[in-house]
Structure formats: structure tokens, C-alpha cells
């Protein structure tokens, strides 16, 4: 797909001496870019009779699409669920800082909050394209308040709600206008959830199941009504049971609408999920895995007390708890660490790990034509992984300019594995 008329005259960049992630494989191919989009060089050669204007030698690096994080509550001291007057600059700060983790597009996530907070905050987080200034905002992910009391996890009990009275009208009354919303997490066992799910889906909003005690039957009904995602699989839901697998059973359910499969988020920070559980889920349904950070405002801040929604959290090393308890409340592992941890824990190949953080979230959000891939016509948002010493994932914008990056996590075993893999 060519860019618009205006890009036909734009400079053609050719990244060479690299391997690119395309079609589930790392191919020894050059990547051609024009006007911020990935270009088909064969078409350029035979139809426009043109060659590249500029050649960039990548020194044997791997080029991958930017990561997409569909569940991130804040970071660097910014809490998206805080009703501030200038939410926009907080979002911008996070957007800029997560580039260093390889995240080039994200869904700012709001946890269970009172209606005033939603109505103040939502209008301040519009969908916004990314660039060298920061990752793009794809839409807000609303996690709660229509969730289960028993499985609320870190969400404040006082602000939980139901929509059994007026179904979708209750949803609108709580959140206000949904223009900037791209995903809602809810518990399908709540009364009238099928009609709410259908109403949300009809507006192009993805529905995710989470913080729920639903059995498999209720979960399947929710998927038949239009739900397509599971929020942090295993966490805040009933454990898998062999006679009622619960929400986890959706991974292998035979009752899903034909041609559809379920996507499921996993926090692979080494804390929220045991590696064996990660492997079971991945092996059962590799195409549906979406890596998320579920990062809290404490991301990037270090040990101590910080705010999350209407609550206080305590950070201790790589773990964040609800202050005064042992309840986990989100992770503080950056996306590139999650990808590397998943790679190591699952023993999968690098291509699968990369797709779980790029292609799959793009598919979940219906954006895979332009995002999460390096296919022709996609937005040229590229991560550059040097080889053989794997460091962090500085993001290249479409001009191939490397944006400033965060210090790498020392992970010697990963270094060895990534050398071997690629």
C-alpha cells in the first residue's frame, strides 16, 4: 500500500544488513521506508523505476515493530487515574519515557474510580499518534468499576459498580462520553453484561474479561456477545479447575464464534505468573498471547510508597504491593524486560516473543494493517536490537533516528540465549 499522494516524492530510506521480523520469521531482508510507512521495494523498482535515496547499514541488527502495551496504569510518578487538571502532560511524560522500553503505542489504563474521576480524566486523554516525542496513545483502557467484589485485587471496594439497573445507560452515566475509550474490562457474571458487551462492541470498543468469578459458560457467553480479550490471565479470576476451567478455559474453548480466537494478556515480569503457568497458557494458545506490563506509577521510580488510583502502594525491588498487605497491585517491569523474561521462561523463539508484544496487541485492537508489523504499508515504527550484545530496545522513528534510551537491565542468561537465538 503506497502512502498518500504527498509521500510519492518523499525520500526513500533503505535499511540494509539487518534481519526483519515479518510473517512470523526473522528474514534476512532490507527494510524500505518512505513517508513514515514501510515500502514495497519491488513495486518501487518496477512501477516507479526508483532506487533508495539513502542507505543505512544496520550492522547485522534485528529490526522489529514497536511494542504495544494495552495495559499500563501510569509510570514515573504519573498516575492516569488521578483526577488532575493537566492529565495530558502526565500522559505525555509516560509516552516519552516508555519509548526507551521499546513501547511505541499504548493504552493508558484507568483502574476502578468514582464517576467524577472518569469524567474529568477521560476527555484529557485523546487518541494521539506517536513520534520521536513519545509513544502513540491508542485509546484508554478502562479496567473497572464493573468488576467482581471478590476478585477486585487492588481496586478500591467503595467504587465498584454494577449495571443491572440500566445496563449501558449505567455505563455511560459512570464514564461519561466514550470517545477516547478503546477497551473496557468487566466481569461477565454481572447481571446484564451480554447487552452491555454488545453495546460496547457496537461502538468499536474492545471488551475484556477480568477481575471476575465467572465460570466457563458465562465467559463463553460473553465472547459470543463480543468480548475478545482476557485481562491478565490467571490473576483476579477463578483458578483453572478441570471440571470448570473458568475464564482460563477460553483458551481452548470450542464455543467461540467461528473464525475468532480469544486474546489474553499476561504479565511476564517473573512475579505475577509462575513460568510453568506462562508455558501452559502459551502452549495451549500461542496465537492469542498479548504481553502487557500492567505497570503502576511506581514504574521507573524505585523503592518506597507511591499512589495508584485511590490507594497507596509499596514498592520493594521488582514487586509492588497494596500498602500494608501482600496483595500484588501491578508490576513495575518495563515491557522489554517482560519480553525477555517471556522468551527465557517459555523457551519460545524470538519471533514469537516479539509478536506477543507487537502483532498480537495490534490484532486485538484491529490495527494490524498499520501497527505491530513491518508489512508493506504499515507505519514504520522500528525497534533496533543490536547483536550480539542485547541491550535495551531504543526505538527508531521513521527517519531512523535513535531516541534516547534507558539503561539496560543486566540479564546475563538472556544475553546468552539471545545470542544463540539471533
Amino acid at each position: 500500500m503506497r502512502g498518500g499522494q504527498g509521500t510519492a516524492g518523499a525520500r526513500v530510506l533503505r535499511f540494509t544488513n539487518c534481519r526483519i521480523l515479518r510473517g512470523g520469521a526473522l528474514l534476512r531482508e532490507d527494510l524500505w521506508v518512505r513517508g513514515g510507512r514501510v515500502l514495497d521495494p519491488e513495486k518501487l523498482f518496477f512501477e516507479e523505476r526508483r532506487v533508495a535515496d539513502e542507505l543505512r547499514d544496520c550492522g547485522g541488527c534485528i529490526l522489529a515493530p514497536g511494542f504495544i502495551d494495552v495495559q499500563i496504569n501510569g509510570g514515573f510518578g504519573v498516575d492516569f487515574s488521578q483526577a488532575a487538571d493537566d492529565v495530558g502532560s502526565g500522559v505525555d511524560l509516560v509516552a516519552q519515557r516508555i519509548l526507551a522500553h521499546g513501547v511505541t503505542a499504548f493504552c493508558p489504563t484507568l483502574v476502578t474510580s468514582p464517576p467524577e474521576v472518569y469524567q474529568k480524566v477521560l476527555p484529557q486523554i485523546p487518541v494521539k499518534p506517536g513520534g520521536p516525542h513519545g509513544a502513540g496513545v491508542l485509546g484508554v483502557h478502562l479496567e473497572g468499576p464493573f468488576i467482581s467484589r471478590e476478585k477486585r485485587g487492588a481496586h478500591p471496594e467503595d467504587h465498584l459498580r454494577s449495571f443491572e439497573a440500566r445496563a449501558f445507560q449505567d455505563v455511560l452515566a459512570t464514564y461519561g462520553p466514550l470517545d477516547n475509550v478503546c477497551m473496557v474490562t468487566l466481569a461477565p457474571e454481572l447481571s446484564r453484561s451480554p447487552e452491555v458487551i454488545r453495546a460496547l462492541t457496537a461502538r468499536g470498543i474492545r471488551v475484556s474479561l477480568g477481575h471476575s468469578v465467572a465460570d466457563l459458560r458465562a465467559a463463553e457467553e460473553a465472547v459470543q456477545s463480543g468480548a475478545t480479550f482476557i485481562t491478565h490471565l490467571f490473576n483476579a479470576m477463578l483458578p483453572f479447575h478441570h471440571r470448570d476451567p473458568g475464564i482460563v478455559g477460553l483458551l481452548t474453548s470450542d464455543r467461540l464464534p467461528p473464525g475468532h480466537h480469544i486474546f489474553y494478556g499476561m504479565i511476564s515480569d517473573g512475579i505475577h505468573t509462575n513460568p510453568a503457568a506462562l508455558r501452559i497458557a502459551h502452549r495451549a494458545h500461542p496465537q492469542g498471547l498479548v504481553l502487557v506490563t500492567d505497570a503502576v506509577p511506581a514504574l521507573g521510580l524505585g523503592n518506597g510508597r507511591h499512589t495508584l488510583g485511590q490507594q497507596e502502594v509499596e514498592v520493594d525491588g521488582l514487586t509492588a504491593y497494596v500498602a500494608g498487605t501482600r496483595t500484588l497491585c501491578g508490576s513495575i517491569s518495563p515491557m522489554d524486560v517482560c519480553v525477555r523474561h517471556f522468551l527465557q521462561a517459555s523457551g519460545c523463539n524470538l519471533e514469537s516473543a516479539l509478536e506477543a508484544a507487537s502483532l498480537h496487541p495490534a490484532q486485538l485492537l484491529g490495527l494490524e494493517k498499520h501497527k505491530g508489523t513491518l508489512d508493506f504499508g504499515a507505519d514504520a515504527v522500528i525497534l533496533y536490537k543490536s547483536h550480539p550484545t542485547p541491550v535495551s530496545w531504543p526505538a527508531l522513528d521513521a527517519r531512523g533516528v535513535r531516541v534516547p534510551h534507558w539503561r539496560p537491565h543486566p540479564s546475563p542468561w538472556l544475553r546468552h540465549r539471545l545470542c544463540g537465538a539471533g
Partner: protein
Amino acid sequence: MTIMRLVILDNYDLASEWAKYICNRIIQFKPGQDKYFTLGLPTGSTPLGCYKKLIEYHKNGDLSFKYVKTFNMDEYVGLPRNHPESYHSYMWNNFFKHIDIDPNNAHILDGNAADLQAECDAFEKKIKEAGGIDLFVGGIGPDGHIAFNEPGSSLVSRTRLKTLAMDTILANAKYFDGDLSKVPTMALTVGVGTVMDAREVMILLTGAHKAFALYKAIEEGVNHMWTVSAFQQHPQTIFVCDEDATLELRVKTVKYFKGLMHVHNKLVEPLHSMKEGN
């Protein structure tokens, strides 16, 4: 010197190394802005090794295609240009994307042109305007055809539309998931006469399945049922083959030409390089 040379190498890889011949011819020609070297090119599995070697010489800085014009032999009719089995795709993936040729100088027949005969006539005209072909590299089908000049083609034919023989369709099926219904039945091809007009012709053939065709091409008479035999009447043709391709030849023929290898090798040793400023 007007001679037919038969160069026999031990195996496919050594035969492919005779890409050195093409390299030397281009460099000795001293191509430049006012003097382009015109090269005719084939597709198929036989020349793949040869293309790889040419790319290697290019990547080493020994050979540039900046002042080379290419004319491919053929292209399927009705196959989209970006279909993985089109000859445009073949040439892009196996050659053009790895070298520095100007896209305006890479000519391939358009099998989706509105007026196919006009497309063929235009191709002939382009060859003429380029000053004719200096070296036409080709392959040979198991039925002895050159390009898509199937048995029965006129030996003075020009670029035109051809219906493919069943042998060819069967041979091509492996590139279309073994499904005969997916294989194109028509192609645009340069004629035997078109290739005969080239100042020099190099035919690559390897493998036992080509042996009978080689026998018919050089040990029997000129015959339109084995169109490659036409090159017996070309002033400068070189056949490059491996041992297996000689299996149907008389021992005497093979011994004679093997005995000339010391002469043949002078054509490729030394391997020239543009680095020397030749």
C-alpha cells in the same frame, strides 16, 4: 573466433562459477555512460547459482551493473506482476534487489499488457535501440526449448505470445503447489531469431534431465523440434554444463571438449575486477 564451445564442469556449483565469464565480458567491454553492456537473462533453477555468484562479485566491489542493460527472455501471461512465481518477482528477489542496476535499464516483458503483441514489438524495438544484445544468457528446457520457444517454433521467430507445451506446464507445476490448474498456459517470449541476433550466446545447462536435450542440440542437426539446435549456426555460442548433462553425448564429443578445457579456462582466468579500473 567463431566457435561453439562446450565447457564441462564436474558439478552444478562449478558450472555456476562460470558466472566469471559474464563478469569478465562486462568488464572487458568497459561499459560507461555512452556505452552500455546489454545482457539477456534467463529464469529458472539452473541460473540461480550463477546469479548468486554475480551478486557476490558485485558485493565485493568487483562488478557494477550501473552501465548494464538487461533484457529478460520471457514472462508469463496473466500472472500478476507481484505473484511470487512471476518472472518479475524472480528477477527482483534473485538478482535486481542485490545489485546496483538502474531500474530503467531492467527490461522484462509485461504479461499483463493490454495489447500483448504490441508489448512484444516494443520489446524488440527496445533491444534494437539499445544497440542489440552483447551477451544473451539462457537455459534449455528438457524438450530442448530456449526461452518459451517450444518444439515446432520457427527458428527465425521474434518476440511473441506462445501457448506453453504440456511438458513445460508439467515441469512448472512444482512452482504452483503441484496444481496444474494454477500454472499459466501462455507466455510472452523472445524468439529464436531474437536470441540468434545477440553477438554472443551462453547456454547454461545442468542435470541429467537436460542431457537428451543437449545431445539433440549439438550432436544432431538443426531442427525446429529442438530449438536450441539453432545455435549451431550462431557465430559465438558457449554451452556451460555439468557432467550429468553430458550423459547422452558420445564419449568422443565429451573427451574432445574436455581436452579443450585449458583453452576455455583462459576465458575466466584471471577473473577481472572493476576495482582495478579495467
